[in-house]
């Protein structure tokens, strides 16, 4: 089963790192195949940045994302540029505070940035909170795999903070699932 995940936000939020971590979780720790790509340009220094991961049990031949089934959107500009056209069948995680619009597909509005700011006192880990929520809501990789991939990928000395952020994201994701079911 091929999953195409598209991340978008503004430069500096760690949109590309999020995709790298997800790809690493799938390819190294969950034993699947993954390809990570990104829009590579001046957007990376502000403006809407975009990265993508394809996850598949089969070898991945065509490496570009053509029809994402999962969206992770962390800015309004990113929503307009990369999220607004999401098909009905997709699922979207969006930052509740930074994205004003809502898509026509299923979505989870996750307060990743505000929780990172208020609970963890470090807004820089908002992307990791979002990754946790992504895994909790979609199960696209295992929680164990994403934990290992986060630890592989973050700077030394920040492991605890990032793990806390990830687990906070798991909780926010589960809560959103419960709200959706209710």
């Amino acid at each position, binding site marked *: 089963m091929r999953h195409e995940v598209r991340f978008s936000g503004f430069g500096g939020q760690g949109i590309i790192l999020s995709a*790298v971590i997800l*790809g690493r979780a799938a*390819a*190294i720790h969950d034993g699947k*195949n*993954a*390809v*990570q*790509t*990104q829009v*590579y*340009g*001046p957007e990376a220094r502000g403006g809407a940045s975009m990265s993508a991961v394809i996850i598949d049990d089969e070898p*991945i*031949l*065509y*490496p*570009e994302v*053509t029809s994402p089934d999962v969206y992770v959107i962390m800015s309004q500009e990113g929503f307009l540029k990369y999220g607004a056209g999401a098909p009905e069948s997709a699922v979207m995680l969006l930052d509740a505070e930074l994205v004003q619009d809502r898509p026509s597909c299923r979505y989870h509005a996750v307060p990743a940035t505000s929780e990172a700011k208020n609970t963890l006192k470090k807004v820089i880990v908002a992307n990791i909170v979002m990754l946790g929520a992504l895994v909790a809501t979609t199960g696209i990789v295992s929680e164990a795999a994403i934990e290992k991939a986060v630890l592989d990928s973050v700077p030394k000395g920040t492991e605890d903070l990032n793990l806390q952020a990830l687990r906070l994201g798991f909780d926010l994701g589960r809560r959103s699932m419960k709200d959706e079911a209710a």
Partner: protein
Amino acid sequence: MQGNTACAEGALAAGCRFFGGYPITPSTEIAELMARRMPKVGGTFVQMEDELASIASVIGASWTGTRAMTATSGPGFSLMMENIGYAIMTETPCVIVDVQRGGPSTGQPTRAAQGDMMQCRFGSHGDTSIIAVSPASVQEMYELTAKAFDLADRYRVPTFVMTDEIIGHMRERIAIPDAVGITPRRPLEQGSLPFAAGEDGVPGFPAFGNGYGVHVTGLTHDERGYPSSTDPHVHARLVSRLVEKVEGARREMADFTVTNPDAEVVFISYGAPVRSVEQAIRDMDDGRIGHLRLRVVWPFPDFALAAFTSARVFLMPELNLGQMAREAARLTNVPVVPVPEIGGELHLPDRLIALAEGYL
């Protein structure tokens, strides 16, 4: 691992111990990684003042017997042409990575292209032959960069890794082999003339610092290495040998795969478009489409086209307006149709399927 990272790691595994370069998008990660890793393996990294100097430093390093490389993209590649000719004339083994981006000129720094395929082959003035490989995955970035060093040493000729922004920046899982098989450069036998070649056309290498007294010049030279720039026979013998040592070995160094050899409609591809063609063939799933995918692109394996005995048409998707397609067309009576895609996007598999079906 990212494609550019795999390129640098493959080079280090192959024993590359000198990198001279000038960073340019989208190849910069190769220089960055080399700057970090070279000192740790006892090698040398030099950021040169420009690309003219970069390739010159690589040529100098290679003459000490060191495996040496540089990495660049279109505009830098253009600046290297003069000294690439010098490397060809002086039979200096070296590896040049071109992470291709949209051109001409500064063009599209952040988008992929395959527009330099003819430049690597014919960019130098004079009659020349070179070797070029083209990876289609992160795994192949590692493997083919390593292989490029062996080819460069074996034939004493600049060898190009002709990749692109898509493969260079993509991340995939790779399996790193415990060791890369390295065939060392064959040294010149003491007492032999430095530019006297045996049957294979490749003289032994007299690395500086090993007691050889060698004169190295870009002028036409005799077997002693001394300039002899007016004698037509000396020039004809030298330049014919420089070309023939590569062209005559095209079967020996050929590296390609053949899928569905009985097909009537056959794609030829190399580099990133390989991925689109493989996807199209998997999606069609009926064995009616053939595929010749090249890993060594220069010298072009002319004989490989004959593997497709039923071919009615060859379709050649490239990230240019039809460069290698012209080379293929020159080698077969079967029509070769270029399938260009420029601007930075890869061919959509559905487009290739629709195209192929039009010929079935």
